């Protein structure tokens, strides 16, 4: 029965090659764009080295201090995180907490050549919250940080820039006027992984000035590794109550009385950055809504196009349908036949779209437009692709199928379609 | 007026060659009312198409008023069809999305006239066939006989000298058929319109001046 439908479907699609072509074109291109966007989002937010535990990791990326006349918004400072967030390690649901700065531009001069790098300062726990791929040597430790040792972990690209790619462990690197000994080399981290990417890492205590220790607002982030994914809501709630406690200890309550922040997943953290305005406790929902709206908005035109084409296809075969009806085919069979055709078309289009996506992703990674980008087509994205294709196929088939079932057999035989 | 000399028409599909008309010689004078009869597939419609300049002969010559039509280019042919010929079909071929009056106006669109003049001529033609009360209706709202009358109005709106009717009563019952026949006879008698009519019905053919019989593409008697 299904095989019969399939055979007929393929034959029919082969008969009107132009229609088949333009339908396939529309579906595959639409899918291409959507999958590229999905791959990009996946690249930025999904669990990937070094954040392989991203699904049980939270970060405190932003802190807002509000007062009656003032509002100040930036990354949290070391003082705030050290006093209020580090004690959260005692919670049973928290495995470990690391403090790390944002990636800052630093300059080095090597043999008259200027080299720009992104540097983060971190405590020794960073290497146990995130899982970097070491190609040489190893990380610096908590003890290194406590003693202010001038050691650094560098990326492969940094090794390329400073040491021509030769083994670097034990060698000295000068950055921003400071000299560090290389302790380890890690694989490059894609630049869009906003919470972990950098060209080199050094201990926090090596900072040129110790003013950071006093700051509530600064350029630090806390990364909290939970024991399991299920613990996340509890940790978020715990953090909120810690905030309320912290508010009572604000140094200048006349200027700033309230604190707004959240322990965010990667997605929520980005949402907080992208959708500014009044600081929201849960920005993730908003970003998701915006993305959904964009996706639907984009698919509007291809869907209308496809419905139009499908309708034409049906009306084109009006007389054939009339004949079949005259010979006793029920509406159900005909509509079923058409929907199978539509599904086959959509699946073929989806397959083409996937192949195109693979090509474009490969070209994109090779082009280096985004540093160290390695957009992938993985199983999850493939499933999204199938889901979108299925949605497309069904949606663009419903209205034409309905029109088809209403075709008056006699009129259809006469070649008229109204 | 219309002259066919040794006219043949062949149709070629992938491998098969069909002879629709074989060596036809025919002369139609002005003001004549002729019927063409014969069994199905004998080439009646093909003959009408050739006379009506809708198609070209594979062999032989078709001449209108002494001038052979193979001299005419596409533009010129279109002009002749527009000014000198009118067509009536078995299936009526009315445009269902246009009102009756708009349908009748169609031949006049290809002539230089003002909208007002066109409308006047269309209404006059509709009056001639007795459909003045239905000018704003759509074809789907009319009976078969009424639709054919609209088609006749369309065919005569430009005052052509020659009418070509392909089984005009074929889709109608006998009463409506008689009505249509009556209109055609009237046109021939009063306006001296030359009419070439293909028909199945011997009753209708009887009323015409001359009957041309075809069998397997050839003229017989």
């Amino acid at each position, binding site marked *: 029965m299904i095989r019969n439908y399939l055979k007929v479907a393929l034959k029919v699609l082969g008969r009107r090659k*132009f229609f088949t*072509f*333009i339908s396939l*074109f529309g579906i595959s*291109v*639409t899918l291409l764009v959507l999958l590229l966007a999905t791959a990009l989002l996946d690249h930025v937010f999904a669990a990937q080295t070094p954040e392989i535990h991203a699904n049980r990791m939270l970060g405190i990326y932003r802190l807002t201090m509000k007062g009656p006349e003032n509002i*100040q918004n*930036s990354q949290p*400072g070391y003082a705030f995180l050290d006093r209020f967030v580090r004690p959260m390690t005692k919670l049973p649901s928290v495995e470990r907490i690391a403090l790390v700065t944002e990636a*800052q*531009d*630093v*300059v080095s*001069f090597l043999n008259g050549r*200027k080299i720009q790098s992104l540097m983060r300062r971190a405590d020794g726990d960073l290497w146990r919250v995130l899982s970097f791929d070491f190609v040489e040597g190893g990380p610096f430790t908590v003890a290194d940080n406590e003693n202010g040792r001038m050691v650094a972990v560098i990326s492969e690209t940094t090794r390329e820039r400073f040491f021509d790619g030769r083994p670097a462990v034990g060698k000295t690197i000068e950055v921003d*006027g400071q000299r560090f000994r290389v302790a380890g080399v890690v694989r490059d981290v894609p630049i869009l992984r906003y919470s972990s990417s950098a060209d080199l890492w050094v201990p926090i205590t090596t*900072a*040129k*000035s110790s003013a*950071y220790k006093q*700051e509530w*607002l600064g350029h630090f982030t806390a990364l909290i590794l939970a024991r399991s994914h299920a613990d996340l809501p509890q940790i978020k709630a715990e953090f909120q109550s810690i905030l309320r406690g912290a508010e009572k200890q604000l140094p200048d309550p006349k200027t700033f009385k309230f604190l707004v922040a959240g322990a965010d997943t990667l997605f929520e953290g980005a949402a907080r950055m992208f959708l500014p305005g009044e600081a929201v406790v849960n920005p993730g929902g908003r970003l998701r809504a915006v993305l959904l709206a964009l996706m639907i908005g*984009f698919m509007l*035109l*291809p869907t*209308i*196009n*496809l419905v*139009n*084409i499908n309708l*034409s*296809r049906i*009306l*084109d075969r009006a007389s054939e349908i009339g004949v079949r009806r005259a010979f006793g085919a029920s509406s159900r069979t005909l509509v079923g036949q058409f929907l199978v055709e539509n599904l086959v078309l959509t699946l073929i289009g989806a397959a083409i779209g996937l192949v195109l996506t693979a090509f474009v992703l490969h070209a994109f990674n090779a082009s280096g437009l985004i540093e160290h980008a390695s957009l992938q087509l993985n199983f999850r994205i493939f499933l999204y692709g199938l889901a979108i294709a299925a949605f497309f196929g069904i949606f663009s088939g419903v209205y034409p199928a309905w029109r088809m079932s209403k075709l008056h057999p006699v009129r259809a035989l*006469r070649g008229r*379609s109204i | 007026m219309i002259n066919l000399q040794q006219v043949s028409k062949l149709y070629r599909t992938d491998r098969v060659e069909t002879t629709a008309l074989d060596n036809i010689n025919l002369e139609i004078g002005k003001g004549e009312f002729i019927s063409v009869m014969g069994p199905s597939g004998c080439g009646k*419609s093909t003959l009408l*198409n050739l006379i009506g300049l*809708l*198609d070209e002969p594979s062999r032989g010559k078709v001449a209108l008023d002494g001038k052979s039509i193979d001299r005419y280019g*596409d*533009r010129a042919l*279109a*002009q002749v*069809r*527009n000014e000198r010929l009118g*067509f009536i079909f078995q299936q009526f*071929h009315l*445009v269902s*999305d*246009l*009102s009756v009056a708009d349908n009748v*106006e*169609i*031949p006049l*669109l*290809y*002539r230089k006239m003002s*909208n007002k003049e066109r409308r006047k001529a269309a209404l006059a033609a509709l009056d001639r066939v007795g459909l003045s009360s239905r000018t704003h209706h759509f074809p789907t709202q009319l009976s078969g006989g009424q639709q054919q009358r609209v088609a006749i109005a*369309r065919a005569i709106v430009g005052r052509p000298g020659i009418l070509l009717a392909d089984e005009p009563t074929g889709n109608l019952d006998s009463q409506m058929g008689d009505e249509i026949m009556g209109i055609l006879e009237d046109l021939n008698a009063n306006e001296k319109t030359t009419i070439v009519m293909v028909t199945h019905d011997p009753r209708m053919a009887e009323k015409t001046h001359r009957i041309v019989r075809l069998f397997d593409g050839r003229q017989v008697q």
Partner: protein
Amino acid sequence: MTRHLFKLVWNRKRSNALMILEICVSFLVVFGVATLGLFFLDNYQQPLGFEWKNVWSVRVDIGQSGANLGGGAPEQAAIFARLLKEIRSFGAVEAAAGTAVIPFDQGGMTGSWTIDGKDVQVDFAEVTPGFAEAMGLKMVAGRWFQEADSALSWDPIVIDRDLAREVYGSGDAVGKPFGKAEAKERQRRVIGVVSDFRKTGELMPNGNFMFVLKGMDGPEARPLRNLLVRVRPGTPAEFEETLVKRMQAVAPEWSFEVRPLSQVRATSYHFFLTPLIVAGTVSSFLLLMVGLGLIGVLWQNLLQRTREIGLRRAAGASRTAVHRLVLLEQLVVTSLGVLLGALLVVQIPVLDLIGVLSNRVFASGLVFAMVTMYLISFVCTLYPSTLAARVQPAEALRYE
């Protein structure tokens, strides 16, 4: 003939509805992308108000956040002043100044004032007196800051022409007070007007700009976040290292990052233009898809109307006439779609939904979108209409 055309299209509006909708949505897409591009283009053509070539920016990190917001101390301001002096001592340096914000950069400071009942939005920057020379500003009225101005009992400010026009109309702004001084604030007074200063760069529209003097002595003095250094044309990139080493020697605890303004400008261009390029590429694909769909649907439509076409040919239409009929019909359908889209889009200026969009840019976007849709429609109708014109009347009418 026109009336006939309109009647044809109107009577078939149900079956044309999807096509009209598709054209309408495509029109909206083209309008969006075109308007954005034209917006940038329009802004690009206005003068910047400053010179960025041969100017380097230096980000000064005193190891403390909030250097702009009252962070730091007068001692650090003294170090900052020394930095400026050292930098100016180089032969390769033509001018140097300190500033809270650098042009082309995203960061900035905005304030809003209520002056004579009007709400005025102003972008402003705290600068040292050397700023005008470093950035090549042009005075239009009055004068720029001088070192002695820090001793004044009121706050001198220099505003740009846009702001002057908005607050003082066509009158002279020099010497006039700017807004009312709040409780602990000092009165601000305009001492000069510069030509329009477009801090965000060529791609963004004009805004109101105000310069505020930041002196490096006195108890209120604080260091600024950035330095701007104008170097002599032809200065090699190696001078950067020399400069940084000298600055590091003056302030060993501070960090310095040198970025030529040409680099900052390039980054900001990337930031603004990338979405446009992406949107443009995606839109092109969508339009291609729409065009192909149009050909298919039109073709099938005409196939259905074979008998009508045969009939018209029999009634005396030449091939050209059929050709023309199909093209013009499609023109009318396109016009309906475009009209619908235009009606939607015209709400924007009428309801003043997007303030920064000038009427001229909006109109250009509208025209561009219209022309594009007509062009696509026309091109896509060419082939089907040719096929329609080739219909043989005898074949068409023989159909059943």
